[in-house]
């Protein structure tokens, strides 16, 4: 087992790869009461079309998320209940590219770890339980339909993406999940939940060697092939539609606008590209920027104004979101500021200040065991080391950041999604 120390942030990460290809990372957190472990598959909502040997297979939207729900079923009962009986708080999530199962506990760490590794490695689906799950997930989908925040996001993806599977909600639709059977679940488990396509990440105050021994004991599956995925081919940088508007029960309009960027191919360069784009957006419209303060004092934006980068497989998005009637004024201000920065560059002292400020946020993110483990797991799948974030940020120049924002946030590249209040809802 090798280890790497990151002195600036006071962390040490242990790493090993088992013979069957399972990557294991352990972060030692002295003094913590809690231990956290996550067992994740490189498989998410976007992985609908794939091939292992010959010929592509198409699967129903929502399958990865459905599988996540059903993995807790074991021949001898429900794994979630077993973990809860041990006092562990366990859960799982499915993102666009990852499915992760995790628990945290303050006692019986090794026993809980065995349970986690065991249930994720054991496919057990019955006709009855699969049918019943459709009812539960349908309610989850319904709940999502009532969420204006979700609607504004999904509609932006639909306006921007032409064929990428991220357009469809991770949970799928009530219709798409209707076609899921025990055998589709088994096939997807077989293809994606093989040790070579998975990572185990744990953090806490325990002996790293023990985690590796336990993983070796329990994850006995042979190495598997790496599934090739089809995300619908390269996306043009232009949006499909410029505007999607809907009405919902909201007090005032919610809006989100954004544009696509071409992601770097190599993992580490991709990570650096994301950090650079985030830094650029922060310098351009963060709380200490002139743009933010101009819009805030005019009452055009409020504290809910936000921006960021979303990374999907094979495409990145830059977005801005907020609430209020004057979203057109926000867009115009963003476009002209991006254009100005492209011509004049960032103010040097502002840019260096923003780099300095990123230290606090980065350190804060390391306080959370969950956050440490999940970002390392995602980094492992994508081929980068998130612990090197601060060093990468340090090397980003104001010129490249200026070039990034001015190239992305243009009127031509941008699509807008708005959720308006119901007609007649005004007081």
């Amino acid at each position, binding site marked *: 087992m090798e280890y790497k120390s990151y002195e600036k942030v006071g962390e040490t990460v242990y790493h090993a790869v088992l013979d069957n290809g399972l990557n294991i990372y352990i972060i030692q957190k002295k003094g913590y009461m809690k231990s956290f472990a996550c067992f994740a598959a490189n498989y998410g909502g976007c992985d609908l079309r794939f091939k292992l040997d010959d010929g592509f297979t198409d699967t129903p939207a929502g399958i990865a998320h459905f599988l996540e729900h059903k993995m807790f079923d074991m021949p001898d009962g429900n794994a979630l209940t077993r973990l809860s009986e041990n*006092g562990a708080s366990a859960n799982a999530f499915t993102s666009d590219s990852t499915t992760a199962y995790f628990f945290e506990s303050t006692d019986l760490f090794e026993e809980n770890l065995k349970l986690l590794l065991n249930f994720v490695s054991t496919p057990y689906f019955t006709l009855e339980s699969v049918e019943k799950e459709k009812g*539960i997930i349908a309610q989850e989908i319904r709940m999502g339909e*009532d969420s204006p925040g979700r609607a504004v996001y999904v509609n932006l993806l639909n306006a921007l993406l032409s064929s990428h599977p991220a357009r469809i909600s991770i949970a799928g639709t009530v219709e798409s999940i209707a076609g899921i059977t025990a055998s589709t679940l088994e096939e997807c488990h077989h293809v994606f939940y093989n040790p070579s396509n998975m990572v185990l990440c744990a953090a806490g105050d325990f002996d790293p060697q023990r985690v590796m021994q336990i993983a070796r004991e329990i994850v006995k599956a042979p190495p598997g092939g790496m599934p090739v995925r089809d995300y619908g081919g390269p996306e043009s940088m232009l949006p499909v539609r410029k505007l999607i508007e809907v009405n919902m029960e909201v007090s005032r309009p919610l809006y989100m606008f954004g544009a696509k960027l071409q992601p770097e191919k190599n993992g580490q360069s991709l990570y650096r590209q994301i950090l650079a784009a985030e830094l650029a957006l922060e310098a351009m419209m963060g709380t200490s920027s002139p743009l933010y303060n101009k819009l805030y004092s005019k009452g055009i934006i409020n504290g809910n104004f936000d921006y960021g980068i979303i990374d999907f497989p094979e495409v990145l998005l830059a977005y801005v979101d907020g609430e209020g009637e004057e979203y057109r004024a926000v867009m115009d201000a963003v476009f002209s500021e991006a254009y100005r920065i492209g011509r004049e560059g960032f103010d040097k002292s502002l840019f260096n200040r923003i780099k300095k400020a990123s230290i606090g946020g980065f350190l804060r993110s390391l306080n959370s065991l969950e956050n440490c483990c999940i970002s390392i797991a995602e980094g492992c799948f994508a081929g980068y080391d998130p612990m090197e974030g601060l060093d990468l940020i340090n090397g980003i120049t104001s010129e490249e950041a200026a070039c990034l924002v001015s190239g992305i946030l243009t009127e031509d590249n941008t699509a807008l999604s708005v959720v308006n209040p119901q007609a007649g809802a005004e007081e």
Partner: protein
Amino acid sequence: MENAEYRTVMPDVELICVKTDKFKTGYFSVTLLRNLRKETASKTALLPYVLRRGCSKYPNMESISAALDELYGASIDPVVRALGEVQSIGFACGFADDRYLPDGETILEKVIGLVGEILLDPATRAGTFDSEYVISERKNLCDRIRSLINDKRSYSIARLKELMCDNEHYGVDRFGTLKTAERITKLALTRHYRSVIASSQIKLFYCGSADIDRVEAAVLAAFRTLPRSEREEDVATQIKIDCAETRFFTEELDVSQGKLAMGFRLGPIMYHPDYAAIAIFNAVFGGSVTSKLFVNVREKLSLCYYAGSGTDRRKGVMLVSSGIDFDKYQTALTEIITQLDACRNGEITEEELSSAKKYVITMLRSLLDSAGGLEDYWLGQSIDGLTYGPEEYAALAEDVTVEDITAIAQSVVLDSVYFLRGRIEGQVG
């Protein structure tokens, strides 16, 4: 094991410190306590937002933000909470721990100093708050109150509280009402500020690697101009034990999933409340994934996506909330009461009891790993006049018996039921 140290640093100002090396960032908060009242809630809630806009030294947000950037990305955020019938306002700060700063720089004193400037030396014009700041933050406050409807789950719970506690302060939202918010003037707000700053009980909380002497010195320097007068009132929450009969409310909105919210009074057990037993009762009934509500209403009957309960020990109430199809209203309501009846009849297995205990104990121990969790815990203890730490609380939870839980379940009465359903014509379910 980190326990809290307390020190009264000025009249009615208590400093609570948890010293630990395990976090990479420090946490500091200042909290002013007021009674939650319909007439003043909006005015009180508006204060931290107006103060955060500017102080004498940094007269606008841009300069405050720039100062925070220079402090390695420290944050100072307005906080408004309702704790039972107590309204708390103030600021929470997160900042890099000195151990991780380049060139041996220290920022603890600077961050606390900046909080002091923002709280005590606001940007004013001719002795009153800047009207531009008041007008714009008043608009933001009104928007915040209106936007409660955007999240239907919390909206349904807020409506239930409002309807159930129509004659109690508990029904007042932490941000107050639109009507009172819209009427706030800069003069009235300035006057209110002077009274709040001088007469409120104040709690200061710090968690990080510095010791209490260093924090106290920083606080005394930063808050040296804090005016202190007689405490206006003691903050307290009134507990209502009885309710006459269950009231039912239904409202309609354009939604595709129904929201059921039920409000219970914990009843006569609140004369001598056993907080640990209440916590275990809640975990058995509806507060955890091994609870009766989760296992039966969600898992066995597939009635809903979520069904859970939460108790407020300060007020002696329990709220149950669930997302269901419109036509499942009666079934869900009946099933939830059936599960409470099971608790009343002592139908609680050994496994249910031990899972509930482990759940509560894990939650308590996990608090020790998060500065925000520690603040929440110790601030709550301090307001309630309790001194035991999470570990002692966990030991009390370990001793809870089935009889204790049964006694609580038997004391609980259903006060009000609220159902949010779709408009008839737009019905999907």
